[in-house]
């Protein structure tokens, strides 16, 4: 009887914890970090011209010398999320070989976001760089 009651209490407690901390699991944290990098790369890729999904992916691969190969499974969610945030706007257009495709370009807010994120990134990379150089 007593043990069962303890189990009951523990179950309630554990599920409350689960509900409370649902959004901050470990893998979510990692995703946040990567997501920030991806956003910056997408913004940068679109800073010169408007591109469709594959174009963005190619452009990122090109400007990072092939270090980042963004797959559609993470590219499209990022594009849609950033569009919803108002950083990108999308229009249907024609590709170089006359295929219908959705072209993304930066909005004013997107440009501002690119600037802030660039500054942030440079500050962080400087800081990390100096931290790594320190002996």
């Amino acid at each position, binding site marked *: 009887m007593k043990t*069962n009651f303890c189990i009951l209490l523990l179950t309630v407690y554990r599920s409350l914890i689960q509900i409370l901390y649902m959004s901050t699991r470990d893998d979510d944290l990692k995703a946040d970090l990567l997501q920030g990098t991806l956003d910056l790369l997408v913004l940068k890729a679109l800073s010169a011209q408007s591109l469709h*999904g594959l174009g963005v992916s190619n452009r990122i691969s090109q400007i990072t010398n092939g270090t980042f190969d963004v797959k559609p499974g993470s590219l*499209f969610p990022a594009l849609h999320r950033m569009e*919803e945030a108002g950083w990108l706007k999308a229009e249907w257009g024609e590709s170089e070989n006359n295929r*219908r495709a959705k072209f993304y370009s930066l909005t004013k807010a997107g440009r501002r976001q690119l600037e802030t994120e660039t500054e942030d990134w440079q500050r962080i990379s400087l800081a990390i760089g100096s931290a790594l150089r320190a002996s």
Partner: protein
Amino acid sequence: MTTLFSRAGSLLRNTTCKGQVDRELTEEVGSYVELLTEKKMKEGMNEREARRAAMVEVGGIEQVKEEVRASRTGFAIEIFFQDLRYGMRSLLKKPGFTLTAVIALALGIGANTAIFSVINGVLLRSLSYANPDRIVMLWERSVTDTRRQMQNVISPANFLDWQKQSTSFEQMAAVGDQRVNLTGGTGEPEEIKAQFVSQPFFAALGVQPLVGRSFLPEEDTVGNDLVIILSHELWQTRFASDPQIVGKQATISGRQRTIVGVMPSGFHFLDNQVRSWMPLALDPAIDYREKTGRYLRAVARLKPAVTVQQAQGELAGIAKQLEQAFPKKNTGWGVNVVPMHEQVVGEIRPILIVLLAAVAFVLLIACANVANLLLSRAAARQKELALRAALGATRMRLVRQMLTESVLLALMGGVLGVLLAYWGIQVLIAFGPDNIPRLNEITIDPRVLGFTFGISLLTGILFGLIPALQASRPDLNDALKEGSRGSTGGRSRTFRNIFVVAEVSLALVLLVGAGLMIRSFMRLQSVETGFNPENVLTMRAQLPRKKYTEPHQIVDFFKQAQERIAALPGVQAVGAISYLPLTGLASRDSFRVVGEPPAAPGQEPGVEVRVITPGYFQAMGIPLLKGRLLNERDVKESRVLLINETMAKKYFGGVDPVGKQMEVFWDGSGPDEIVGVVGDIREGALNKEPEPAIYWSHWRVPYSGMALVVRTSGDAARFGTAVQKEIRALDPEQPVADVRTMQQVIAKSIARPRFNTLLLSIFAGVALVLASVGLYGVMNYSATQRTHEVGIRMALGATRADIMRLVVGNGMLLTFIGIGIGVAASLLLTRVMASLLFGVTATDAPTFLGVSLVLAAVALVANYIPARRATRVDPVIALRYE
């Protein structure tokens, strides 16, 4: 900011044009694949290879789309609606289950909503005064050996001294309650309740008249006080809501008064029957300390920084000085400062707390009930859940789904509960005693609805969580097997048993509470009143002082009225008394027995003083024990009185009091001779022991307001019109009030305990039904679960009786554990009821025993039915039962 707006726009688009958004996504991903294929072809692959490579790189179009969907704004909402739709469907698929659960919850939530709205209206919602937390009531208090009065009315002299000397208050106002006669306007002469208030009264309460103005300072002086403020109701009923009312005249007890204002609707001070306010106009020239007794109440508004304790301290200091300055009248008298809110609700707080606990228990029982229903249902749904889990639903998602369903159930219960509560409140107001303060102000307001919504959510989670957690970890292997029995394992059964035990014990606590109230009420009803209330009609007449100025006019009026009434056919006896028994009113004074040493000042024994006309004792059926009664010849000069039995026993011991002298200090006119002893009656209330009392003849103290008591030969109520006609014939302008039979008077005096008993009994009844249904449900379920086992046992030679013993024994074991816990909890909890009980203790053994037996009997029935079904099983079928 832009982000926020943009997101809001997307949310709108995602939820409203879902189809289009999705089509565009399909096209977008499709075009990506095409473009990638073309790129690969350019790099030298043939078309088939290129398409294959592209597909591999994309990694599944549907998965990509799903990822995008999951990243969209409002995805969580979408999932929620999915759960909701799914939940709704699955609830509608089992209407029997849904209906049972919703009704159980509606009973629990409805009861809570009704009682919460009472508490909201009576306890929480602030009084309709400005800054009510700074308003206090001032009382005199006297705690001596012979008197225990914490809230005693005030002597005007003391009030004036407090007002003069204290600095804690912004305003301090005295209030005297009186009944006055209103003539003029539309309608018959009418007796109305009025409050005579000193000028700062309305300012102290912080309420302004709706029409006109409040009293001016100069109107609170003798000679300038012929003004009146009407209540909203009186203005409507008697003056047809005349907007030009200010400046018009009203005749109050024979005097013309100018109407200066009308108070807003709902405004009242302590008594919602009061219909008008007039200046009190205390005369500083009069020595009230010597001339009158204590009869005022006082209300005051604290200065902003002053606490109740500080005010109490200051007034106590002043009272101490007054004690020293006026030892004869003030020895032993102090001050009691009571916050207004406490004053209004303090008395009914215990019963509201008991009721709140009761409905909380009802709700908990309902929760346990529904949780058990859900556990059984979850067992039946195991395959479905296992399938969803196998298709990739996470445990979280399953729990969320189940919780969504239970919250949905709870909310449906909540909606139905509000309807029940709405209806219940109407009943409460209709049948509630009219002396519960502010009962008529109770409504279902947003706060009540918020409360209901809150407890619905909470109950939904409370009863849903355990079944949800239980059901969300199905053993996939076992559950998906064709024909598996879907047994839910030991832990689920343990939970079920815990719930049943909890239900039984909660129901027992409620039943004990109700049982105690019922026994207490029965005791109250069977109290020996000392008089015979059958066929007695009562009414009040208050003669205006302006018209009946001389004592003999007053006495003659009642004498003539009595003669006229006595002449009516069917009337057996008529009398009159200053205050009718069981209306809670009395005059008190202190006295001494002549020949005994005088008591110290402030230590004099007290006595109730009642003034009667000849015929009162016959009309009430109160026996004469010794000596003689008062008669027509006992005029002012004859100086005689009667005492009651308690007085004779307490102050004369074994000696015959008849012929002895005693002095009631009253007007200081000296001692009277005791000529008779009459039987004790319950005067103040049925639950109050008789107090020492004396009876004077009306000649001695010519009260202008008396209650007439008429003993008739048949149904007393039928004599009402005839009796009123006789009084009207005597004085056409004289109203008669409170025409009631004595039995109605008694009923009204115990209306509150009756109401409390009724409410608690209803809740206990609901609890009993819910608990027994819950018990039945669980026993039924486990009997079904054990069909296979029963089959084996019977095949091995167990008799029906054995099986019966097994199944019933199991259920009764749970019941007895529940009763045991319930009894223990009751012993702790019923203490809070002690102040509500009369004639039984809070641990009354017969009640505990009786209630336990009732509960055990009901549980036995709830166990027996499923058990009997279990024994009817044919072993062959049972063994095959899958």
